[in-house]
């Protein structure tokens, strides 16, 4: 290869880090446009009701009010998120389906006036029967959340592999258990926000912090009843996303009210609204039956998942599919039978959250594995090693595992946690008891299961006449440092300094229309696209240099910003000089490299059987938790976490470890602390005071171990990381608690109340 950039594997700090810590980054809520109004949404106080009448006469008289739109003013088209076939939402509704559903939107000269106008709107509701429990919602005769649908089950799936009955017959141990996971709120520090402005009422520009401007543009144009190219999205810096900012209704509502008002409008959720009407993690009920042979090999598994979608589907269909079949590929197991149901209830609609269904199902799977290991009297580490998927495996779902560091993850995390010694340590009956537990997971690097369009990524790179590069790509930076990683890749291939590369924020009028950042796709797919674009640009620079130096392009190499002859290095010119020549030769056109990456051998899954290789690279992980349980109070303290992650290749170890640290914190919250408390469909803890997210004092030391399995499809071998880094945390903690005190908690979060009840039950036996 004709490069010597040597940047891959370097722990460069965020290139935009100083701007961030200096408070100079302009977030959406900081934006001001001339004549800009503030808008607020009126949200339903009822879980299920028909909107009979809306009286806005008093609200219109509030000083400063400029526009009000209600669901009764016009008929809004039905829509859902991009590619989801059950259209079940409207921008403003005439039938509210959860406490928080939007019925009207008001724009005023300032936020106070908009808030005052909201109070002045009178809505007459006719209350309808509501259903809050997912199992009750599935029962015949349950109130329909969507009256125009036949049932409360918008999506279901069923598939099997191998011979499940025979597998259970071969089993020496069969464990059957039920598990539940809660509503978890993303807790990004920046609440949802948008700014909208229309040109001549024909084209709207939206400034929004979002993960997928392309998917959002498809959704919002449908919701607004306009063409896609009438919506331009300019991506703003994202103050934390974690799946919650893939796309969001507030963005389209902001466009709607801006069009009616004829002025630019800003809309920002209050924190309470963000709790009430965000898109939290899909709660799941899982029933799982696992059969294991005497030798410890997995024989058969039956799984049934009921996923609580809340009032609308959003992305929960994809999340359910992921929960139904992703974990089956973690260990070698041939006989599988799975049923999944997505169920509407009159609660906040749920959506994507780091892990996309995987943390929910892995809590069940990794817990039941430990229960089976206990019955077999096998060490959980040995048990997992015996069954771990290996490089070269083709799984029963058709996944082609081209690189797999799972066994290394298990071994190295166990070793770093001093597993053998701690596992064998005498369990005392004293008040404070310690235990260690392990859990594993896998993920994807881009996910071809639920989006019908394409998979892959595209990038172009423009070299300016000073030899500096601008990277354009559709994959967004959520704060994890994607822009830094992309700059690193481009600089590596072009052999220029990473500071001389800037990565443009997505602008749908300029950037490629990539799918965005989710499903751990940014580094692997986006990184490949940037790499190819940089190589293309480099070849164009070589062509110019070759003419200038009277050599053939194949005679050239580039290093330290210089293009030179391999045979006679004194014949050279700088990248900047070549770029300047290119600028002149192209009459100002500038050198542009183009990279298109399609992941090879990846297909959409079969609609019915769900069979298919859904990703080009599969990351794996194992985490070990050590906990201390207080038998008297039921409190659990996490003493330490070891997180070993097969990420293929750490393009930037500093940022990679940052993803692990942050994800483990969210995983600890999921395991022990976080639960949106609902009563009659109303979230009771809509504030950071009452919704308990980990603070600095809740965090144990987290040791991260990076396992580099060098995937053949990953750019420089790199696979995804940020999502699987959360997934094993909760089951590892649950398994450690069992090891400490012998109590098995099947419902997250593991609160002191649940643990005390389990300890009482156990001692009573």
């Amino acid at each position: 290869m004709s490069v010597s950039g040597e940047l891959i594997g370097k722990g460069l700090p965020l290139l935009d880090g100083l701007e961030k810590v200096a408070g100079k980054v302009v977030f959406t809520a900081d934006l001001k446009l001339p004549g800009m109004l503030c808008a607020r949404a009126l949200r339903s106080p009822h879980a299920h009701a028909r909107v009979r009448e809306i009286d806005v006469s008093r609200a219109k008289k509030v000083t400063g009010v400029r526009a009000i739109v209600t669901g009764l003013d016009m008929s809004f088209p039905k829509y859902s998120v991009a590619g989801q076939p059950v259209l079940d939402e409207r921008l403003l509704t005439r039938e509210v389906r959860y406490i928080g559903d939007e019925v009207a939107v008001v724009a005023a000269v300032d936020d106070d006036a908009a808030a005052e106008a909201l109070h002045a709107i009178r809505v007459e509701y006719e209350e309808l029967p509501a259903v809050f429990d997912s199992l009750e919602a599935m029962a015949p005769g349950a109130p329909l959340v969507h009256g125009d649908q036949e049932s409360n089950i918008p999506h279901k799936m069923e598939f099997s592999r191998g011979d499940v009955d025979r597998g259970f017959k071969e089993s020496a141990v069969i464990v059957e258990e039920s598990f539940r996971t809660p509503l978890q709120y993303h807790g990004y520090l920046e609440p949802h926000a948008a700014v909208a402005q229309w040109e001549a009422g024909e084209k709207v520009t939206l400034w929004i912090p979002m993960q997928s401007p392309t998917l959002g543009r498809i959704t919002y144009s449908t919701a607004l009843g306009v063409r896609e190219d009438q919506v331009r999205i300019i991506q703003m810096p994202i103050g934390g996303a974690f799946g919650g900012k893939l796309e969001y209704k507030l963005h389209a509502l902001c466009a709607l009210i801006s069009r009616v008002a004829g002025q630019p409008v800003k809309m920002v959720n209050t924190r309470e609204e963000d709790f009430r009407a965000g898109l939290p993690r899909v709660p799941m009920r899982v029933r799982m039956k696992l059969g294991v042979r005497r030798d410890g090999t997995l024989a058969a598994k039956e799984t049934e998942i009921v996923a609580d979608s809340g009032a609308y589907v959003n992305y929960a269909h994809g999340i359910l599919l992921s929960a139904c079949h992703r974990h089956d590929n973690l260990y070698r197991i041939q006989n599988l039978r799975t049923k999944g149901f997505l169920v509407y209830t009159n609660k906040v609609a749920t959506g994507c959250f780091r892990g996309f269904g995987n943390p929910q199902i892995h809590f069940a799977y990794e817990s039941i594995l430990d229960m089976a290991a206990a019955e077999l009297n096998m060490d959980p580490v040995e048990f997992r090693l015996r069954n771990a998927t290996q490089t070269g495996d083709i799984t029963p779902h058709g996944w082609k595992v081209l690189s797999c560091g799972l066994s290394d993850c298990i071994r190295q995390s166990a070793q770093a946690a001093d597993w053998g010694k701690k596992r064998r340590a005498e369990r005392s009956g004293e008040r404070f008891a310690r235990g260690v537990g392990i859990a594993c997971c896998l993920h994807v690097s881009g996910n071809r299961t639920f989006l019908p369009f394409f998979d892959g990524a595209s990038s172009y790179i423009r070299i300016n006449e000073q030899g500096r590069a601008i990277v354009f790509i559709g994959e967004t930076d959520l704060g994890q440092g994607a822009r830094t990683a992309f700059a690193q890749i481009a600089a590596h291939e072009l052999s220029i300094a990473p500071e001389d590369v800037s990565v443009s924020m997505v602008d749908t009028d300029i950037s490629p229309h990539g799918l965005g950042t989710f499903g751990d796709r940014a580094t692997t797919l986006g990184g490949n696209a940037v790499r190819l674009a940089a190589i293309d640009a480099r070849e164009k620079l070589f062509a110019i240099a070759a003419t200038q130096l009277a050599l053939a392009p194949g005679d050239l190499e580039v290093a330290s910003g210089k293009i030179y002859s391999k045979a006679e290095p004194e014949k050279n010119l700088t990248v900047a000089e070549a770029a300047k020549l290119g600028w002149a030769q192209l009459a100002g056109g500038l050198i542009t490299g183009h990279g298109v990456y399609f992941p090879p051998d990846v297909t959409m899954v079969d609609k019915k059987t769900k069979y298919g290789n859904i990703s080009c690279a599969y990351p794996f992980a194992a985490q070990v938790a050590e906990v201390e349980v207080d038998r008297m109070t039921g409190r659990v303290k996490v003493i330490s976490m070891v997180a070993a992650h097969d990420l293929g290749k750490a393009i930037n170890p500093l940022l990679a470890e940052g993803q692990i640290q942050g994800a483990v914190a969210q995983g600890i919250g999921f395991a022990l602390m976080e639960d949106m408390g609902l009563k009659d469909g109303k979230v009771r803890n809509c504030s950071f005071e009452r919704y308990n997210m980990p603070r600095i004092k809740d965090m144990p030391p987290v040791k991260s171990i990076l396992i580099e399995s060098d995937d053949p499809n990953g750019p420089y071998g790199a696979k995804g990381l940020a999502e699987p880094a959360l997934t094993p945390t909760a089951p590892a903690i649950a398994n450690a608690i069992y090891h400490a005190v012998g109590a098995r908690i099947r419902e997250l979060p593991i609160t002191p109340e649940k643990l005390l009840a389990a300890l009482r039950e156990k001692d009573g036996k």
Partner: protein
Amino acid sequence: MIDKVRITVNGFQWEGRVKPGQTLLEVLRDTMGLTGAKKGCDQGECGACVVLLNGRPVNSCLILAIDVDGDEVTTVEGLVGDEAGIIKEAFVQAGAVQCGFCSPGMILAVKALLDQSPDPAAEDVEEAISGHLCRCTGYSRIVQAVKQAAVKLNSMKGTEG
């Protein structure tokens, strides 16, 4: 009713009218355009709006602008100079920043901490940051960054002294 207040903000005198219910955060952001202070919750629970009031960190969303008449306020925009630069640089180098939304408030809290105790123990750092939520980093890098900044600041002061 609208009242006039006089505040020293980042070393400059500011005089203007504020509404009785207006918070310091709103005046900083909306009136003065100092958007480095962030509105994360507006209830004093996340720390994203922290500024220094007479040198001490406060949640500016909990303070009425009318109550700071005659006081000195420092926002992240006013945190300039070598010492502040070392703290910011340490945050970036240690990977203590990801999305950056909580960072300005934390930087101010850390500045106040290091002004008070130049060689803080890990518990002091935890105490200073305990009112700040960060959902990206898991906090450990923040403790590292503060320690690295403290070492650099102390050696700088040592060479000066």
